[in-house]
């Protein structure tokens, strides 16, 4: 699969919620090759501190050669990214990794928490572009509060999905966690696409397993290269082996990886 290192111009950078930013860049080759669930490695700044690139899922992909990332400011790298201005140039490598398996034609659930919603937007758009009836699919989204969730939920509603939401503070949708909403839809779907904080994904994976619904998860782990070279991005596989998230993932079927504490 093709991969590119592109110096990209920033098209737009918008703060969509407190600490959450959407960054759009012109990256024609990466954009053209990307599939939902894949990620990019972004260089933050020019000096050697911070040193490593940061991994981000592709949030949206556009036919004009641009793509966008959705990220939360949590540390030094994301703080630098949040300060970018239109016209600035950033160095991005992608598209990387194995994205979602899109072969399921039956109704599916897209389940995302927090920034885990980022890759689901690209996924939702790609699914909607196909033959399927997305009105039969479900999108379950959770976040801290309505400020964070509302703008994201709108993306999916606009595509025609049935969207259900949950917030930690109850300011939008269900007051509580996403997995609480899963049981309701299990009878109507065959597969769950899931991305979010690890405890939530674990919960979703368990719930799916009990209901015998297939589940694809997109994992996060610390990455030095994103290219399969450093072997730093391991997580436990199913039977005591290790898998490399950047090449074998970031999307896995739940059964491919270990979920022990």
């Amino acid at each position, binding site marked *: 699969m*093709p*991969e*590119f*290192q592109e110096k990209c111009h920033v098209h737009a950078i918008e703060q969509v919620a407190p600490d959450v930013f959407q960054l759009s860049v012109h990256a024609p080759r990466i954009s053209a090759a990307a599939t939902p669930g894949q990620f990019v490695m972004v*260089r933050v700044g020019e000096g*050697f*501190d*911070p*040193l*490593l*690139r940061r991994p981000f899922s592709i949030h949206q992909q556009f036919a004009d050669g641009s793509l966008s990332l959705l990220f939360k400011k949590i540390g030094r790298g994301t703080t630098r990214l949040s300060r970018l201005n239109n016209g600035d140039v950033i*160095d991005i*490598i992608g598209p990387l990794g194995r994205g979602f398996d899109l072969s399921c034609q039956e109704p599916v659930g897209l389940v995302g928490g927090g920034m885990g919603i980022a890759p689901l937007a690209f996924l939702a758009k790609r699914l909607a572009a196909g033959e399927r009836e997305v009105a039969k699919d479900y999108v379950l989204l959770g976040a801290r509060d309505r400020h964070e969730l509302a703008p994201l939920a709108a993306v999916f509603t606009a595509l025609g999905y049935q969207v259900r939401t949950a917030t930690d503070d109850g300011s939008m949708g269900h007051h509580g966690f996403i997995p609480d909403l899963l049981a309701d839809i299990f009878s109507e779907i065959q597969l769950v696409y899931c991305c979010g904080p690890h405890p939530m994904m674990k919960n979703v994976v368990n719930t799916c397993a009990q209901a015998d619904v297939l589940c694809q998860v997109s994992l996060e*782990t*610390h*990455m*030095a*290269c994103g*290219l*399969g*070279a*450093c*072997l*730093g*991005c*391991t*997580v*436990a596989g199913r039977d005591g*082996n*290790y898998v490399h998230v950047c*090449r074998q993932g970031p999307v896995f079927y739940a059964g491919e990886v270990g979920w022990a504490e």
Partner: protein
Amino acid sequence: MGRVDMCEDIDLQVRIGSLRLRNPVMTASGTFGYGREFAHLVHLQRLGGIVVKGISLRPRPGNPPPRVCETACGMLNAIGLENVGVEGFIAKKMVFLQTVNTPVVVNILGDSVEEYYEIAHRLDGVDGVGALEVNISCPNVKKGGVAFGTVPEMAARVTAAVRRATRLPVIIKLSPNVTDIVLMAKAVEEAGADAVSLINTLIGMAIDSRTRKPRLANIIGGLSGPAIKPVALRMVWQVASAVSIPVIGIGGITTAEDAVEFLLAGATAVEVGTANFYDPAAPEQIIQGLKTYLYEQNEQSVRNIIGSLQTG
């Protein structure tokens, strides 16, 4: 004739023992996978050489995660020498590398002198293998886990064993975690090494103050990146001043100026490591930048600047 053309006339060839490199810029072990990982991003056939991830006799699973963490201008890794083993390497990884017209240096490691011998022996004669780089920073299990690379006699014994096992050029990769690296370099030179490469990573550690846990599951790991460049350069200079075999400089090299510093200090070639992670374009940019540097310095050949540091 334009400047770019002038640059193209510049001779970048160097030799490490009997191994000829089209230019002195290789990629360092463990930072470039088995080459293929970078095939989309790098013109592999432009590199001076590719040093592959360290290979052991049998496959190794490596350490539990987390295995990497970022530090100031550097990173720590405790990969734990995960690799496919020498048979897996020959069967699965060498096949691709044989299609690339660039010298392949196989980095090898072992738990015992015998193991080093066996791997070296197995790789001797494998099509496409241009040299062996022997990682002696590994613990000697028979000597209570003391690293081979910290005791001159142990390092010499590994060198002699590998030397006997193969006709390939033998590069011994030195550990910087020693009081006197010159002693180590001399010991392996005397034991038959064709070249030395240095430095491997410095041993370091990082802690998450919030959880009070080490950031690496292995607690300690190897520090690499620009942070260590000054230490690497000092050691390369000391070693190059003391031995007569070629020295390969490694440690934090990102730019052509970095590479030039190592060449001036006496290195015949360099390996680019961690930079491949944050900038896969680095090795090719270094090659281009070397030409520009030599042109500006009015030098026809890179060999003219090796060891030409002015200390007077």
